[in-house]
């Protein structure tokens, strides 16, 4: 498994740095001109070695002085930005007057740097300070749009806020990567006491990159696995746990979630690692679904990352599963969202078709979903508590303290500002926000049509025919039980007798041959015939829903359309007598477990007159047969290629003027050019090699099975 991104460039960190710095230059033009001046290109370069080279006193005179001057200037500017953000906060988020450097008071003492300081450390410190400055700026800009515990509503502000969230998240990964690098170098230096401390090069510490710290951009890439969510059979068994996790995170309810997590703990170390990585990302706030002001400073993030790394992946994750399954669900939702951000076409398509995963749109595309953002705020707070609490603090306890779900009813009572009432300048000036609240069932459900919502006529008729057969079979089964005989399997004669006694079968048999043939041809001609709904199939057969009153034929005896429901009643007089009149008018469904859509479709069929219903049933039966063997025409090129392959395999050389296809069809036996399928077990009988199983020239699965059965018999 590979990460989504492994370099700052690919993840978009450089773009975020440039965007934020360009805006910073506009807002603080005077201060930057007098302190930083023109920012050297190496500060933002993706290649760390280039920056190191520029800080090397052996090649560039006064490189160290220039580097530390940059550190000082950037720190001073960051203090200024923070001070202005504090002033803004006092004014309720309004943009206040710009402060000057003198308003900051005395500059704190700068650390003394030895002239022999390693250029790697100088470069890393300068770049860390650059990230810290841009984070502070993003924080201030975001606070001008909305407070930490709020989310913007107006669309123009949402665009800006989403971009800020994304850029701040990217810059945070830059800052933390350099902080982690410096901390690692310091740790190793401390471990190597001696007269000559080792150089950074000798320590072989990898350069700060995206992979240095866990963040959303280097989440494990599971896009290919998630594509197969609807077809688990297409995945190796070892990945089923992870696939189940990804499939279930978009469910609204929690039913089955805890048992899935327990299976993950029990069976899949890889899935545990994915979850632990995602949880580490959420606790340290290294993702875009966070208000920039809610993200902790790099000092805290470093402590959180180190504390989380020290956790036992088995014991601590088991505790999380037991006590905070909802938190794991939220972080896996974030993980899925970051993956879908890269697979933009899938995300847009899911959003268009109203699938739950389509709601997992993250910055910079849109503002993160309110509840996801609220959950991430809580997890960031929990991460801070975990880091500051030392080893005694339990991850699940910290998470449960901060992550509390509010009932959905309370969320709905919060009035939402009406954006439509504001126009033009008023819309730009107004701060339209709603408070952040978390409700664990925020994701899920579907407002659009799903596959289950569209019930095909084949399925409906199949359940009706099945019910009709059961009506004959159940009395027979009860009769057998009373006489101590087991009737679980019917022989051919019993099946034939029962089948022909069923009311539906007798009704279909009454259709004239001409009509039946016309229906069969229609079912074979229309490719999607087996997928048509009852209404569509009726339209194709030119049937009208004839809602004749049941009394028309039943009571007066006059000629008129007979409903299918009446036909059933005719057969069973006792049942008809006992049944309630109301029940006669509303035929019951074949199963109480049926969805409303299926029940409605069944009622439509039962309301048809007998001839129409027989036509529909025959049509559905033909469609079902047709759909069992779908034939595709792959075109003449593929046909010729297949014929050529068969001829080459069986050493048949076509004669002069003869094509490969003609040679194969004329000279080879039928089983070389046609597939033979077993109607009983639906397997292919031809000698073939499908690439599965043992390395043998060919396999004959069905033939072998049948032979074995025969031997047993």
């Amino acid at each position, binding site marked *: 498994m590979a990460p989504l991104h492994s370099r700052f460039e690919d993840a978009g960190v450089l773009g975020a740095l*440039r965007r934020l710095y360009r805006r910073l230059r506009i807002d603080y033009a005077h201060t930057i001109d007098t302190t930083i001046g023109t920012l050297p290109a190496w500060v933002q370069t993706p290649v760390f070695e280039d920056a190191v080279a520029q800080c090397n006193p052996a090649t560039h005179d006064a490189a160290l002085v220039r580097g530390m001057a940059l550190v000082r200037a950037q720190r001073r500017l960051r203090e200024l930005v923070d001070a202005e953000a504090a002033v803004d906060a006092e004014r309720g988020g309004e943009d206040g007057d710009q402060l000057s450097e003198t308003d900051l008071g005395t500059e704190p003492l700068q650390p003394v740097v030895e002239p022999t300081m390693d250029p790697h450390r100088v470069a890393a410190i300068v770049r860390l300070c650059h990230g810290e400055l841009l984070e502070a700026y993003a924080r201030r800009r975001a606070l001008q749009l909305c407070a930490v515990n709020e989310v913007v509503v107006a669309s123009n502000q949402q665009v800006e806020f989403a971009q800020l969230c994304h850029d701040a998240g990217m810059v945070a990964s830059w800052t933390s990567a350099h902080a982690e690098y410096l901390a690692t170098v310091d740790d190793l230096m401390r471990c190597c006491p001696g007269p000559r401390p080792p150089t950074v090069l000798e320590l072989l510490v990898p350069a700060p990159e995206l992979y240095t710290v866990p963040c959303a951009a280097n989440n494990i890439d599971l896009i290919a696995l998630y594509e197969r969510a609807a077809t688990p059979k297409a995945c190796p068994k070892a990945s089923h746990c992870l696939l189940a996790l990804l499939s279930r995170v978009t469910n609204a309810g929690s039913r089955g979630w805890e048992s899935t997590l327990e299976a993950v703990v029990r069976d899949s170390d890889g899935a545990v690692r994915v979850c632990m990585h995602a949880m580490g990302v959420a606790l340290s706030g290294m993702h875009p679904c966070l208000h920039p002001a809610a993200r902790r400073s790099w000092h805290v993030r470093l402590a959180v990352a180190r504390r989380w790394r020290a956790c036992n992946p088995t014991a601590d994750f088991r505790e999380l599963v037991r006590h905070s399954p909802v938190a794991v669900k939220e972080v896996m939702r974030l993980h899925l969202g970051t993956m879908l951000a890269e697979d933009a076409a899938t995300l847009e398509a899911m959003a268009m078709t109203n699938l739950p995963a389509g709601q997992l749109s993250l910055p910079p595309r849109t503002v993160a979903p309110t509840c996801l953002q609220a959950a991430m705020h809580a997890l960031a707070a929990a991460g801070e508590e975990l880091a500051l609490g030392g080893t005694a603090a339990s991850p699940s306890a910290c998470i449960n303290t901060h992550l509390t779900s509010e009932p959905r009813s309370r969320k709905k009572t919060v009035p939402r500002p009406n954006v439509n009432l504001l126009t033009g300048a008023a819309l730009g000036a107004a701060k339209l926000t709603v408070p952040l609240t978390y409700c664990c069932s925020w994701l899920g459900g579907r407002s659009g049509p799903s596959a289950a919502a569209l019930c095909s006529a084949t399925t409906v008729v199949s359940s009706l025919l099945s019910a009709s057969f059961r009506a004959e079979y159940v009395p027979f089964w009860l009769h057998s039980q009373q006489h101590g005989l087991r009737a679980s399997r019917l022989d051919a004669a019993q099946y034939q007798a029962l089948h022909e006694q069923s009311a539906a079968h007798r009704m279909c048999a009454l259709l004239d041959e001409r009509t039946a043939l016309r229906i069969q041809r229609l079912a074979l001609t229309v490719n999607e015939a087996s*997928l048509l709904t009852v209404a569509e199939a009726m339209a194709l057969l030119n049937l009208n829903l004839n809602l004749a009153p049941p009394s028309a034929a039943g009571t007066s005896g006059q000629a008129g359309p007979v409903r299918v429901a009446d036909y059933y009643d005719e057969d069973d007089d006792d049942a008809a007598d006992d049944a309630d009149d109301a029940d006669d008018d509303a035929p019951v469904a074949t199963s109480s477990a049926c969805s409303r859509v299926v029940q409605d479709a069944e009622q439509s069929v039962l309301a048809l007159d007998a001839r129409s219903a027989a036509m529909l049933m025959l049509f559905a039966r033909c469609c079902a047969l047709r759909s069992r063997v*779908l*034939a595709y025409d792959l075109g003449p090129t593929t046909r010729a290629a297949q014929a050529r392959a068969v001829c080459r395999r069986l050493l048949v050389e076509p004669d002069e003027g003869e094509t490969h296809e003609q040679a194969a069809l004329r000279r080879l036996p039928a089983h070389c050019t046609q597939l033979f399928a077993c109607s009983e077990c639906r397997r292919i009988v031809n000698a073939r090699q499908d690439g599965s199983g043992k390395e043998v020239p060919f396999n004959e699965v069905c033939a072998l099975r049948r032979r074995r059965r025969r031997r047993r018999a």
Partner: protein
Amino acid sequence: MGDLVDQASIPTKELEVVPKSHDDSYLRPPDTSLGERPCCLGDRCICVWMARWRYGDDTNLAFVGTEFLLPSQRDAFLADGTLPPTPGKCLVCSRYFHSFLYRCARSDPTFRPSASISLQAYGNALGVAKGESVPTHASVACDADGYRQEALLFVDEEWSNTAAARGGMSTFLWRPCVKFCATHYTYVCDPTTELPRMIQRNVGVAPDAEMGQDFRQPAPSSMAGTELAAPSPPAAS
């Protein structure tokens, strides 16, 4: 039953098979001096947007991709300068359209391939497209000069039980198409022409030659501080 294939089979489209090397040659800006045309989406081309998101709005790596020509169309273009009558999309946008339309059809059982649906990418409207217009070509899969399985659109067997798969989009079940995923592309600056272009990574059957793996070669232990001053080739802007 054998007669069913001839009499009631579901038709599929004959598609040209395109190798990966052909695709690679189109991940660049058009050479208008030769008569090549840019992607018909213009500034909304996904090549532009991905570069801007990664490197900032003022990056010089953003470019409008070259209109993608099939091998037969390119042969005609090289022979007599003939181009398709309607300007087409670049390879990346074309893949985005393929993926989007397939996912829509796979997720929505009521999807009609003949209906025009509006498309969006990265929050930008891209116009409208019909499901029956895709796929336009097939790619070489799991073979030399081809793509890995995970780089292709995953079309499962259940897809055959949708109306779209039995109508205008039936070809998806049989012909491999490369999906769109932003992680498959990396921007580089061509050292000879100094023009930006894209490289596909982690999608080909053959190991990536230009980009290599996701980690750098470790620094040799004898490397001194002065040697580090040698600048590395610029990767961005």
